[in-house]
């Protein structure tokens, strides 16, 4: 059983992002980048399935600039067997990524795609769902437990107010939530080994996919600063302020 794991290169989760002065996006010059944490969970899950003898091969895929190779090496240091980079400098939106992944699924024929539920940079939470729709496969998103059986997957999902368990037919798309697992630390020997694992590079055109952006970003702005609090004299003043100033009651 082959598992395909898409991994995205994003601004590191410890870094405080800064909006560019011209409002066109977030400044990523000189900024530390790393693997989207939800994708790291996905790689860990896939590797654990292989280590348990359920899966036979874990293929990591990343779409984007040349430096995404580093993200793929990080996935291979966790344990992915090989990597595929779909290389492009064009801004990639979720639909374009889903189409690229569809092309790779057609080629690689994985039994399951395990991806992060969303990327921490744009928080779109769309790629997994779009990929499932394009493939005509079942999907189980926000997984907190994954069990692969014979032709089916049993997935526990985190939903509002509790947990839901689904049984879906394979092949399928699963996206990971935070509690699915805790990814291992990549060890130095594994990082060394990862440098020698195969990494293929393809271009979107090779896959016959049109990746032109369909959405236009109008403006990126920082959230407004929280203003200082005030101390109210009594309940009446509080109610008055909530009613007339904050206009929330």
């Amino acid at each position, binding site marked *: 059983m082959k598992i395909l794991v898409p991994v995205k290169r994003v601004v*590191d989760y*410890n*870094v*405080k992002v*800064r909006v560019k*002065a011209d409002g066109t996006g977030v400044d990523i010059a*000189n*900024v*530390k980048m*790393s693997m989207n944490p939800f994708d790291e969970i996905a790689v860990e899950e896939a590797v654990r399935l292989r280590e348990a003898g359920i899966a036979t091969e874990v293929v990591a895929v990343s779409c984007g600039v040349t430096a995404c190779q580093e993200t793929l090496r990080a996935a291979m240091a966790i344990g992915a067997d090989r990597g595929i980079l779909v290389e492009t400098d064009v801004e990639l939106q979720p639909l374009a990524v889903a189409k690229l992944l569809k092309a790779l699924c057609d080629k690689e024929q994985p039994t399951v795609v395990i991806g992060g539920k969303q990327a921490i940079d744009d928080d779109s939470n769309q790629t997994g769902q779009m990929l499932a729709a394009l493939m005509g496969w079942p999907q189980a998103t926000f997984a907190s437990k994954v069990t692969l059986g014979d032709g089916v997957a049993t997935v526990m999902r985190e939903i509002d107010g509790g947990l839901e368990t689904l049984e879906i037919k394979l092949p399928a798309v699963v996206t990971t939530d935070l509690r699915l697992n*805790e990814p*291992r*630390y*990549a*060890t*130095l*020997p594994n*990082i*060394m080994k990862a440098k020698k694992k195969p990494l293929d590079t393809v271009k979107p055109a090779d896959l016959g996919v049109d990746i032109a952006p369909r959405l236009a970003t109008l403006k990126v702005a920082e959230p407004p600063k929280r203003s200082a609090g005030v101390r109210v004299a009594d309940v009446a003043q509080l109610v008055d302020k909530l009613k007339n100033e904050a206009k929330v009651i």
Partner: protein
Amino acid sequence: MRESMEFDVLIVGGGPAGLAAAIRLKQLAAEKGSDISVCLIEKAAEIGAHILSGAVMDPRALNELIPDWKEQGAPVTTAVTEDRVIFLNETRGRKVPTGLLPDCFLNHGNYIVRLGNVAKWLGEQAEALGVEVYPGFAGAEILFDETGAVKGVATGDMGVTREGEQGPAYQPGMELHAKYTLFAEGCRGHLGKQLEAQFNLRNGVDPQTYGIGLKELWEVPAERHEPGVVVHTTGWPLPSDTYGGGFVYHLEDKLVAIGYVVGLNYTNPHLSPFEEFQRYKTHPEIRKYLEGGKRLAYGARAIAAGGLQSQPKLVFPGGALIGDDAGFLNAARIKGSHAAIKSGMLAAEAAFGAVAAERQRDELAAFPEAFRSSWLYEELHKTRNFKPYMKKGLWMGSLLFGIDQKVLKGKAPWTLHNSADHDKLKLASECPKIDYPKPDGVLTFDRLSSVFLSNTNHEEDQPCHLQLKDTSVPIAVNLAKYDAPEQRYCPAGVYEIARDESGSNPRLQINAQNCVHCKTCDIKDPTQNINWVVPQGGEGPIYQGM
């Protein structure tokens, strides 16, 4: 059982010194048509992320290391256009006429750089030459062979719990063995400190003396930006008996690096280097550069300032100390990256020769010999008396150093001495309290919002990397005698005196997650009770071009 790997040369630390050594080793191998395996580890999550410096860089060493650095795209682009040295009093500044400045204060031909970016670029050069560069791995332990020589280091274990147990994500560290190990941890390296003790490297030399440097990166309005201008100030807000000063470096892209250095031999335990830096920015001569701008980044790092007479012996069986791990900085010139690079190159040449001669784990005597006949030795020798003169106070110190440099040309027949910093504090009861202004949130800030901008991060469930030798000392000695100075000298708010609800039963709370790896506590703690060790690899600040 830890895995191990063998290399010809292992380098601990990916700053200018370590990377220069790595590059030089590979260049020499290429020139000689031989091969040499070189591994470099770095505790930061990526190369450059723990680098913090002013920085004005003298390109002399870089010219020697990579002569075509311009064509190779080095982020060294902003040439210094003007030097301004200003003595500040509370309300005004007096610029020193350029003709009166000793040569060491002149920066014509130098560049204003973001040293973290330079390190990142050097890291790429090293990798391209075949150096195995592994950021995210800290040298946690020195390994010795059966003869007592250094045989390498072990990286730290990952996933150990606060109590020291193996957690679910536990991964043992790895042993890296080498014929020669070069330690390039920067100022007050925690392994360097152990090596100095193990091999008595400080016998017959002065104690090292340090400063703490705090720095912010600002984006300023175009009309306030003067690319290439270098401003150094002394005087206000520090009293004249306390060594220190500020800098404002106008970088490219409307960026301004502003910083403040306080000598860690200060005596008043109420002094807070962080708050001195914050109020420094409110001086009219400094504020004028920043108003209307935005603070982008913050960080701090200790600096080794003792110069030549405080340098330990550089070599021991199996390795050498390079860069600021050995205190190569030139305090009088307010720069050290050129010295770090040069020291790394000299050590690399010695190590390459030894490996080529099929030697291993002996003393690289050729390194200190080459250093003594290098331009770097001459340069450091010329300014060796700067820091000791400054112990005489700002005015007398400046006058004496001025005479030393302008009249005697640094050739005075005497060498003055340094003393340790940690025993300089006077009792809190004997010193005036200092009333620092509240931050305004525009020009001046509090510690926590500052630390936030260092991007620092540590896994909480791990053994505290700030070890107390004696847990009673923080209250019984530090609080009782010195009003717990670690609360003030720590630039990251790591140390707090917590009390119970009634305001009694004080105890020291260590917020180790905030640590920015500056090492000041390891240096300044009055009884040397704090031992800084490495946390898990890949943690600590994530500076982006500091």
